[in-house]
Every structure is written in C-alpha cells, then in structure tokens.
C-alpha cells in the first residue's frame, strides 16, 4: 500500500504529481460537511473513537508501580485510568466505580497503593480488583470478584501508550499501526523523551480543521512568512513542496523540506551553537533509521507522521513533537501539543531548548488564529467544498480514510 516514488522527491518539481501515484483518491474538491455536521460528528464518535487505538500518553509519565494517569475522553463520555501495577504491568480501566458509577479518580496523575471512591469508600487494587466495600453485609448477593473496574485494552508502541475503547478490539496495536509503526522503528524516542514541554488549548474549530493544517506545508510561505521566512522554503522550493509522501491504509507521512541556506537570527544562531533545534541548521546526513527521511534527502527538516485518527508524531533530528486533537464538540477541540528533547546536560543546552520551544510555540500561535477564523465562516454555506492541490494529498487521503470508517457518503 505504501507508495514509493523517489523521482517525485524533487523539491524543484518535475512535472509529475503525487496524485498520479494514487488515482484511487481522485482530484475532486472535498466536502466541508464533515467539519460542520452534527450527524457526521456523532458517527465519528461511534465508528472512529470507540473503535480504534488512541494515544493517551507516554510510558515515562507512569514509570513506577502505583503511578497513575487519568485521561478524560469527552468525545466518548469516558475517563480512562492508566496505572502501573505492582507487577510493573501497565493497565487501563474505565475510571468508574462499580457501585453507582462515580468517577473514581479525580486528579490527573499521582501515585498510590489503592483507589478508594470518594462517594462510599469502595476500594480497588492497582490491578482493578474490588478489595473493600464498607458495610458489605447490607448488600444483596454481592460478588466482589465480579465487580472490579471495567478493563480497557491498552498497549505500548515505542513508549507511547494507546488504549482502545472497543471491548474486543478488531486488531492489535501493532497490526493497527502497520507500516507506519515499522517506519519509525529505531528512532531514538526513549533518548529524546527525557524532557517534555507541553501546552494545551481549547480551540473553536472542528478537530479535522486542526489535522488538515498540520499535514501540509503549502501554508508555510504565507501564514508563517514572518516567523519562519526561509526555514522550510527556499530559492529552489518556494512553496515548501514535500520531499516525499507515503500513504498507508490509515496513516500517512510527509518528509518536509528544510532550506540549507536558511539564515538564522542572532539568538537562533546562539541557540544552535549550544544545542539542537527544531529548525535544523546542520544538514550533514544523520544516523536516523531508514524509515525517517526515507529518501535520505540532505535538504530534510522533519517528517510529519500522521497516525489515524488524531495523533501526530513529527520527528526531526535531536527532537520530536506530538499533537493530539481531541474533539469536544463538532466545533470545539482540545489540542495537546508536546515537544520532546534529550536531557539537557548544560545550561547552554537548556537555553537552546528554551529558544526552540519559544519559536515553535509562536509559529503555532499563527496557526491557531487561522484555525478559528476558518471555522467561524464554515457554516455560512458560502462554500461546500475545499479545493486541494497536489501537495495537499495527505488531507485528501485523510478524507478517504475518514469515509472508510464513517461511511457517511456510502
């Protein structure tokens, strides 16, 4: 399924189009309805978010037995409790007491030996078993062994924790990630995950508006002309054409061009001198694994890896960043942004990371405005479709995958 077309990797353009490799996608405009329809949103909840593997965190967040993490999933009206057991195993449960369904754990993270419900004191072990019921004798035929927390399927890929709300997942996490998972094998996620900076924001936009914006680079030369004027565009590639695109059955990736003649600002230059940056200044070919920068183009900045439905793992050299887009309503999205770096050993490296996250954040400030401005006029009916060009093929593919799951137009 993965299409490899090295001759298309040219940043200068050679008359060939990525869409030629994927005639099944067509070239027609794509409908706006999925971004504004409540009916479509309801189907996404049932047919996507209740069915597929969802990234909810990283293993570093709960390293020790007793460590727990709560992940609320408003789109499914669910809250998930992730806990590291005394046996070192990671387990996931619905965060719901078996008595009268109070939310069991209210804080976001912590460490404990057992979970006691605030409402009536029902108590559970780290393995989810119900261990204590106050005034147990007053219940009727209470079978404590059958009243543990409701388990949720959980698995880990490269340190990323995924859960699946389907009581019987259709496939394993490894099968679900398929070639996308394999392509990132060998990337130093563990080393680069020592330091994590995180932001969250609630945007007034459909979650797919966010996804679309971060799976194309066409906008860079315009929306980001002040913040990153020459990092991802250059004389030979004024419109930030991708070096490589790969489409998998559900997931997809793009290798993003980096301008070797990028002129760093004074502070950026200093930051680079003391550490590494999202915007690469050192274009010597790296030791990154074969699946990263797959064409091994020297003018490479980073790979966008879009894991269906709502998880981006964008990898560069010395750093990577992730996005999780969580739908709250048809026109509201909780967006989690994280940037990861190796452990800084010196003040200079720490300064470098600070610069890197500030420029990263300010670029995103430009994106966020556009996302909300777009959503604010989508329901006007002025347009019924988005017009996509060749370099927006990942968006087109996403529409196709959505329809495969949702079946709205079938």
């Amino acid at each position, binding site marked *: 399924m993965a299409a490899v077309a090295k001759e298309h990797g040219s940043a200068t353009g050679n008359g060939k189009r990525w869409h030629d490799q994927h005639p099944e996608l067509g070239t027609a405009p794509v409908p706006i309805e999925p971004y504004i329809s409540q009916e479509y949103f309801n189907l996404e909840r049932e047919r996507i978010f209740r069915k597929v593997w969802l990234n909810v965190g990283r293993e570093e967040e709960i390293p020790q037995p007793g460590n727990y993490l709560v992940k609320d999933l408003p789109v499914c009206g669910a809250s998930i409790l992730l806990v590291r057991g005394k046996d070192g195993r990671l387990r996931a449960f619905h965060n719901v007491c078996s008595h009268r369904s109070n939310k069991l754990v209210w804080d976001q993270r912590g460490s404990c030996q057992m979970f006691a419900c605030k409402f009536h004191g029902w108590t559970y072990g780290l393995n989810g078993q119900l261990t204590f019921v106050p005034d147990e004798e007053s219940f009727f035929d209470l079978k404590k062994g059958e009243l543990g927390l409701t388990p949720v399927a959980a698995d880990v890929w490269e340190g990323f924790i995924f859960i699946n709300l389907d009581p019987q997942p259709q496939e394993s996490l490894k099968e679900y990630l398929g070639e996308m998972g394999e392509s990132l094998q060998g990337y130093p996620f563990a080393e680069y995950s020592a330091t*994590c*900076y*995180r*932001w*969250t*924001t*609630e945007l007034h936009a459909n979650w797919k508006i966010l996804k679309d914006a971060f799976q194309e680079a066409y906008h860079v030369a315009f929306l980001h002309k*002040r*913040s990153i004027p020459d990092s991802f565009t250059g004389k030979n590639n004024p419109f930030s054409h991708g070096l490589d695109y790969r489409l998998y059955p559900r997931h997809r990736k793009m290798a993003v061009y980096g301008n070797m003649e990028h002129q760093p*600002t*004074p*502070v*950026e230059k*200093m*930051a680079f001198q*003391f550490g590494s940056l999202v915007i690469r200044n050192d274009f010597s070919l790296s030791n990154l694994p074969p699946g990263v920068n797959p064409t091994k183009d020297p003018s490479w900045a980073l790979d966008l890896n879009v894991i269906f439905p709502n998880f981006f793992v964008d990898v560069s050299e010395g750093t990577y960043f992730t996005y999780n887009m969580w739908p709250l309503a048809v026109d509201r999205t909780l967006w989690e942004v994280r940037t990861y770096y190796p452990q*800084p*050993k*010196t*003040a*200079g490296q*720490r*300064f470098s990371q*600070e*610069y890197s*996250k*500030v*420029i990263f*954040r*300010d670029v*995103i*400030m*430009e*994106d*966020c*405005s556009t996302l*909300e401005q777009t959503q604010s006029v989508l329901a006007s009916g002025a347009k019924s479709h988005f017009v996509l060009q060749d370099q927006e093929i990942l968006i087109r593919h996403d529409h196709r995958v959505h329809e495969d799951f949702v079946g709205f137009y079938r």
Partner: protein
Amino acid sequence: MEIETEKEMEIETEKGEPMAEHVLPETFRDLEPFAGWALATEKERNQKRLASTMAEIQSFYDAILPRMEAVIAYLNQFPLDAMPADAQRLLSLTFSLAEVSTAVELFKQPGVIDGYDATRFVPVHK
C-alpha cells in the same frame, strides 16, 4: 560588607526603584537592571513580554545578547540541577532572551502578529 551594600543601593531596576541586594552573579552585575526578567516559568516570561513596550524589550535584548557567550560559559560550570540561586536567575534571564527574541527579530512587536490569544495556550510545564 557595608561598602558593598552602598554599591547595591546604587543599582536601579528598570522602573528606577533601588534594588535591595544583588540578585545576579558578580560578573554579570551589569545585567541587574534587567533582573525583572528573571522569571521562573514560561508563562511569566511570556506575560512580561506581552506587557512590555518594544523599547523595554529591545533594551533588555541589546543588553544581554552581547553577554550571552560569557553567560553560558559561566552557567555551564554548574550542574543544571544544583545551581546557586543567582546562577539560576541568570539562567532564567537567558530564557527571557529566548522569549523576547521572536518579538525583536521576527515580529517587531511584543506579540505574534495576527496571533492567537497567548493566555489560551496554556503551558503544562514550567
């Protein structure tokens, strides 16, 4: 000590208020007028940037940028997790340089041009 105290009294902050005592390592006393930028969290640094005029931002930028090589060389002698308090403040000053750099070098105004409301983009980290 008393003589030092007198010297300390001469140092003024940006707002012209006398500083009670030195807050930065001795070699970097020239940066003391900008000690108000020594803030512990990204949120505080970003708020100060957005609440400052470009003249204030520019004067801080101009003062610390030429000192950065020396600042980093000085700070690099300490383990990151065991820095004396004055060095820690100096380090957070460098973070504020990172914070204001985009205002000076890219946007020519304190905030991101056509940018999102920064208070809505909430750092979970420090």
